[in-house]
């Protein structure tokens, strides 16, 4: 099975986008968009352009991007069993956690169930929530109780307590995000010891980036006190340990935080002066490492995960280009946006 998956990952690796593909996507006439996307291995996105002269609605684009990711993950997990399988399945769960957040926000604003349902990402066979029942709850309280009886009880229970104490939606979102990534790190831990350094490198790049960007955002955009910032970060065991994060959270400016980073990370972030820049630079370094792992003899699960990370990055860039075109932005602005991708995928 590992030979099958290795071959499958190698075949998929050929679908990753080169820089010139994005240029082509910027230049292609609307009428040829569908065939270009299909040619570049994005049939789900191509379907959104069928017979519509290049027009699309933004929600459908988001849903198609996720559908594409889920389709490929479905193929990759087919030969996997046990912890490896549940790790990759959990990786897709962030889309469903995102649905949970949409549901919660919808309930807070009293949105109609039908409108709310239309905004949720279809999860296909990865879906574990009964969206119909959740969307038809009366309020946040009933919704949270229903969620607590479901597959995300572990994540939601904590979020509910935090929300009940403060009634602050920020606390809900923060607790859900933290709960999800802590769950991911927990599932990765047994695999990291058994599958060589590849998976640990990927996870370290992911969690360290999330922790650093969240830390900067909470500390300097939201002005939260250091102890609260530290509490909201993901509890993990990678380069940025708990002690290091406490030290960083206690700093008073972006520059001093960057100056206190471990040397290797500091070198990566030379000349970066703002939070989106930190994200973009760290993501770019992470992508280089993921690409190396993908083309190395690393364990199958590491290569599969590296592929999914890179693929998602590509899809995010494709989305940026398509949105930019839809809004009629000049190519130079869209190219600039590609250097400064969004802060999170959730």
């Amino acid at each position, binding site marked *: 099975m590992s030979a099958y998956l290795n071959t499958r990952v190698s075949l998929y690796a050929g679908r990753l986008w080169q820089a010139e593909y994005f240029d082509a996507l910027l230049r292609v006439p609307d009428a040829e968009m569908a065939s270009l996307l299909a040619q570049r291995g994005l049939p789900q996105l191509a379907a959104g352009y069928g017979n519509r002269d290049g027009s699309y609605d933004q929600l459908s684009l988001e849903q198609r991007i996720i559908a594409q990711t889920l389709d490929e993950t479905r193929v990759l997990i087919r030969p996997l069993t046990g912890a490896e399988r549940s790790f990759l399945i959990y990786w897709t769960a962030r889309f469903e956690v995102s649905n949970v957040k949409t549901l919660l926000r919808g309930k807070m604003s009293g949105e*109609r*169930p*039908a409108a709310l349902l239309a905004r949720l990402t279809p999860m296909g066979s990865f879906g574990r929530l009964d969206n*119909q*029942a959740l969307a*038809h709850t*009366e*309020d946040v*309280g*009933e919704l949270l*109780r229903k969620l607590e009886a479901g597959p995300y009880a572990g994540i939601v*229970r*904590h979020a509910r*307590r*935090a929300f009940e*104490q*403060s009634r*602050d939606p920020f*606390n809900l979102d*923060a*607790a859900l995000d933290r709960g999800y990534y802590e769950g991911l790190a927990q599932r990765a831990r047994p695999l990291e010891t058994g599958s060589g350094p590849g998976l640990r490198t990927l996870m370290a790049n992911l969690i360290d980036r999330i922790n650093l960007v969240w830390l900067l955002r909470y500390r300097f955009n939201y002005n*939260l*006190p*250091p*102890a*609260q910032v*530290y*509490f*909201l970060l993901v*509890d993990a065991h990678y380069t940025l340990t*708990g002690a290091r994060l*406490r030290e960083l*959270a*206690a700093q008073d400016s972006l520059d001093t935080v960057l100056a206190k980073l471990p040397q290797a990370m500091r070198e990566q972030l030379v000349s970066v002066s703002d939070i989106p820049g930190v994200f973009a630079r760290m993501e770019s370094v992470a992508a280089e490492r993921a690409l190396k792992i993908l083309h190395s003899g690393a364990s199958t699960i590491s290569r599969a995960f590296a592929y999914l990370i890179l693929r998602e990055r590509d899809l995010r860039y494709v989305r940026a280009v398509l949105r930019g075109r839809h809004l009629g932005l000049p190519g130079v602005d869209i190219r600039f946006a590609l250097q400064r991708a969004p802060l999170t995928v959730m």
Partner: protein
Amino acid sequence: MFRAEPLLNIQLVMLASEAPDAALELARMGVFNPSAGMREAGPELLPEAPAERYREAWMEAETRMSKLLAQCGDVQDLSIPADAAAPSLTDLRELNAWLKEIWIACLACHEGEERIQEERKHLAALEETLSKIERLNVDLAQLLRGDSLLAVNIGSLPASGLKRVSDALSMTGTLVSQFDLVGDQVFAVIAGPRSRNDEVRGLLSQAGWRELPIPAVLRTHPQAARSWLDEESKRLEELSGAECKVMDGMRGIIGPRLNEARLRVELARPLAEAALVGVRGKGGLAAMTGWIPRRQLNALRAALQARFHGRYWLDAREPAPDEVAKVPSLVHYPGWLQPFVPLVKSYGVPRYGEFDPTLPFAFTYLLLFGAMFGDIGHGAVILLLAAALYRRVGGLAWIGMAAGASSMLFGLFYGSIFGYEDILAPVWLSPLHDPIRVLTLAVAFGVGFITLTLLVNTGNKISAGKVGEALFDSTGIAGLVFYLGAVGGVVSLTGAADLAQPAGALALIGIVTVAAFKWLETRAGWGERALVTAIETLETGINLFANTLSFMRVAAFSLNHVALALAIFTLANGLEAAGHGFTIVLGNVVIIVLEGGIVAIQALRLMYYEGFSRFFSGDGVEFAPLRLETRASKN
């Protein structure tokens, strides 16, 4: 029974205000399967979705109704009066608003009860905690003084978050000291400089911290806690009783009206379900499209005429050739065949116009099971067990009983009873004594079976308008000609008949025709075309050969049955009387459970893979008419 009933596509146009009643009428008749898309009037002609809001309101009302019924219980089957009309959108919205009001009140009671339960748990934990503080003899009044420099908080938080909270609080110079663990909750004292207490409280609210409500009386001395705790327990008991009374009162008030509301929600279901597939419209008109059995058209016209007196337009047409794959299949089965239907449907639903294999499946399955597991005694046990389980498993027991009877019949043919081969003389043959004949018969049966499947597939292709495939493909007439020629060749080789020349000619004609057809059908370059043709033609021969040999397992299992019995007798004969009897009984149980199970699966496998896969695409759509749901939900 062999083919789906002929259907017509209808388009019903009516006043949008009468759409709920029209859908209700269709549901009453139970013959209309809604479908999406209108050939005659595309989205540009009927751009609106007039039933969308109706469906939305119904979904909300239905969800609330289900939750209320789950709370209230005592749900009876619904009786729908013949003259009942479907609610309008306004009615449905009013009903939904009422249901919302009721459900929110119910929810408040329910949540109140949940909160009381949580309070009780908390109180129990507090009692346990205070008993510990009692032993410490701590002066809580001193500890919790509001004007001291030290801010002290006593409370609980999830155990999983304790380390994180301790680490985070250490950044504010605050200490956390755990003094108890109850379930997944840690009870702790948190103490730090009062100047940073706001920061600490902000963090604690994110950590799910829950302050212990320590009343003033307790602060004087923990021993005073006992009476306070008793009072709190009593208060919660009373509160809980009050919540229960509210719930009971609500049931009394809403109960009668709830049944009426349930009826109205049910009457609204048909249009809401039709809207899921698509009800289109424009201005004051609404249009529904779907499928009905051809024989029901006149009855439908009559019913619509009686109800709407000409205020409708109904158009009916035959399915177009390019939409056959989307036409639902409606097949009527006699009662005795019904239990076999799920076994066929677990492979797939026959397409509209395809041969329905349920009847031949039932006969062949039973025949194969009996042939592989022929034993009067074992068959009788299966039959009796299935009969005993009839009440519990329903129609499935019928399959068990029929399989048992088939097994008994073949047991009679083989002269086998509980593995004993020498009590009864075989009526037909004994597999143990004539294995070659059994093998030959199994393969001959396979040839007949495969021939039948090829013929059925040819018929299916012709009815789907694919005459080329029916005549020239490997699973059509050309494949059959090749197959029969090849079988004739093998028969000649065994010396059973001299058919070499005509058989060879048939096989050659068949395989050349298949190859030519593959060549013409493949759309690719010359090299790829040659490769595809060569491989697919070769595959035709190999598949037919392998599928035929697959039927040797029928003989193998009939021999295996005897061999297993022999093994048990050999073991039993080495033991004394009690051991002998025990081994025979246990061995027979093992044969029935283990071998019986394997044979049941093998017979199914032969049907699915050697039979169905050859002629049955299984991707049809089941006919699902609009209906009224009158039975009480089991939830």
